[in-house]
């Protein structure tokens, strides 16, 4: 392991350098880069709660390999019935949206079947979801820029009505009115620089903005006439979404593993995981996430005859995940997690086995492509000086879908 470690570090350094090089040489264009809140979530967050599908190949180099599939039942239902996205169904199936289910097939070093695992996970608190955040909705509603925009729209409509009512209402007058409506729509909803809009329309906007004293819009169109209202709205919404990125995510779960020759549980785990950002998030800025895991593991006591779940081990793993983001697109591409692990054996202690154990863990996650992550886990036992390494690959189905469709980063 000591020989392999420098190779891994060199490989990581190369990937990180290459990734930075790509980012600097090819800045993504605003038009082609469409990033969802889901794609901006950290890899660690996605491991805690999958929003769609996740495939994982765990412990690739170890003796007990695992092929893992995690999903969300609502996402599966949505694939078959897109109408479930409508708000009344979205609310109705809220519990299903918060649920993850998964199963995995264990393989030994010769790739032979070595047991089946399944599990469920439920998010008790998810304050990071921008589609359900009451805080985000309240902040959007009280946004001063939106208030000014609504006032401006009202004034522009009134102006158009007055002009049309004063006209002879001929077909030409109606066409003029229709063109004016289109100009309002472009002004509010299309990312066209303000100084590229029709000069006559801009003159009307300028006079209303001054008359109504719409300070924020006036500042935007006077100071940055090459920007648009739409791009400003997008910036505001993205910044509000960023503000909830550090909020709390807490899940509880239950998982089990069967014997390879019989459908009986050889292992049962009740677990809880919590993640919370430490600093106020800013777009493209690196951040630290607090990650705390606790689990109670019921497994077979081999000193007793028959198949049982009498050995009980409690574990507690507090850690910090350092999320390094690409400044151009706010996506995390490298994450370093350091954690400690404390294990306490309540029942079924073997001869010479310590009741309490402490480990130091570190996980390095690299986003190799869209939603495909390569996490490398390293465990260190300070009591015995042993180092264990686990090499995994985790892929989100949306990432694979994009890969197959040929949509690049």
């Amino acid at each position, binding site marked *: 392991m000591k020989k392999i470690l420098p190779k891994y570090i060199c490989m990581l350094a190369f990937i990180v350098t290459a990734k930075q090089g790509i980012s600097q040489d090819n800045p993504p264009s605003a038009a082609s880069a469409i990033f969802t809140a889901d794609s901006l979530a950290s890899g660690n967050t996605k491991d805690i709660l999958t929003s769609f599908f996740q495939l994982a190949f765990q412990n690739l180099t170890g003796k007990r390999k695992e092929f893992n599939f995690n999903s969300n039942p609502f996402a599966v239902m949505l694939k078959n019935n897109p109408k479930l996205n409508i708000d009344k169904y979205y609310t109705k199936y809220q519990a299903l949206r918060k649920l993850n289910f998964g199963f995995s097939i264990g393989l030994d070093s010769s790739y032979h079947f070595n047991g089946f695992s399944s599990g469920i996970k439920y998010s008790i608190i998810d304050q990071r979801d921008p589609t359900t955040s009451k805080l985000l*909705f309240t902040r959007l509603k009280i946004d001063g820029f939106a208030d000014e925009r609504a006032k401006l729209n009202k004034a522009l409509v009134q102006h158009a009505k007055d002009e049309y009512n004063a006209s002879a209402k001929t077909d030409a007058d109606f066409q003029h009115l229709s063109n004016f409506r289109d100009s309002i729509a472009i002004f509010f909803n299309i990312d066209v620089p303000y100084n590229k809009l029709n000069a006559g329309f801009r003159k009307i906007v300028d006079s209303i903005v001054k008359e109504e004293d719409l300070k924020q819009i006036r500042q935007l169109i006077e100071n940055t006439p090459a920007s648009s209202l739409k791009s400003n709205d997008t910036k505001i919404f993205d910044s509000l979404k960023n503000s909830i990125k550090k909020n709390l995510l807490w899940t509880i779960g239950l998982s089990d593993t069967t014997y390879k020759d019989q459908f009986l549980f050889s292992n049962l785990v009740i677990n809880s995981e919590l993640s919370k950002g430490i600093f106020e998030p800013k777009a493209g800025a690196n951040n630290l996430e607090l990650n705390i895991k606790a689990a109670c593991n019921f497994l077979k006591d081999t000193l007793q005859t028959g198949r049982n779940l009498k050995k009980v081990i409690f574990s507690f793993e507090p850690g910090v995940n350092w999320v390094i983001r690409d400044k151009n697109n706010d996506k995390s591409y490298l994450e370093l997690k350091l954690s400690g692990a404390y294990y306490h054996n309540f029942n079924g202690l073997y001869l010479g086995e310590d009741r309490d154990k402490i480990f130091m863990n570190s996980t390095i996650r690299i986003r190799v492509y869209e939603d495909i992550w390569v996490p490398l886990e390293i465990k260190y036992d300070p009591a015995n000086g042993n180092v264990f390494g686990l090499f995994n690959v985790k892929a989100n189905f949306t990432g694979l879908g994009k890969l197959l469709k040929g949509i690049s980063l």
Partner: protein
Amino acid sequence: MAKKNQLVIDLGKIKLTDEQRKSLHSALHKTVAKEIKSVEKTNKKQSKTSGTEKAKPATRGVVGAPVTKTATLEVTFTKVNTGDSELTATFNSQSKKITSSDSIIFSGLGKGDMIEIDGTSLGSTTISIDISANPTVMNFTPGNFNDNFLIK
């Protein structure tokens, strides 16, 4: 317009809702317009042969009543919980607000009238209108939004 050129339909004691009146109006207009076209053709042929007075083009609408329309806006919010969206539609100082996917009805609309849309949603929003307007469908991404329907 001369009284002999009007078509009046007596509905007797039947009371109609706005929707029923609109539907009946539309059906009558289609049928009558078709008949008028054939009558015009016949008249033109006759006037060509006889060389007498020029026929005036038929005008659209039920004579005697102001030409107003009733519009139904279908609003759909997606990828969002009910209550985490808000949309206000305004026509002639009459505002109607919804906080979940629903329909909004305005009556008394005429050519050149505008319905203002002002909304906020954590999800995507689609609004469609069932009468001739510019545009007939609006789509918005999550966030705050504004637009207007112009009735044709």
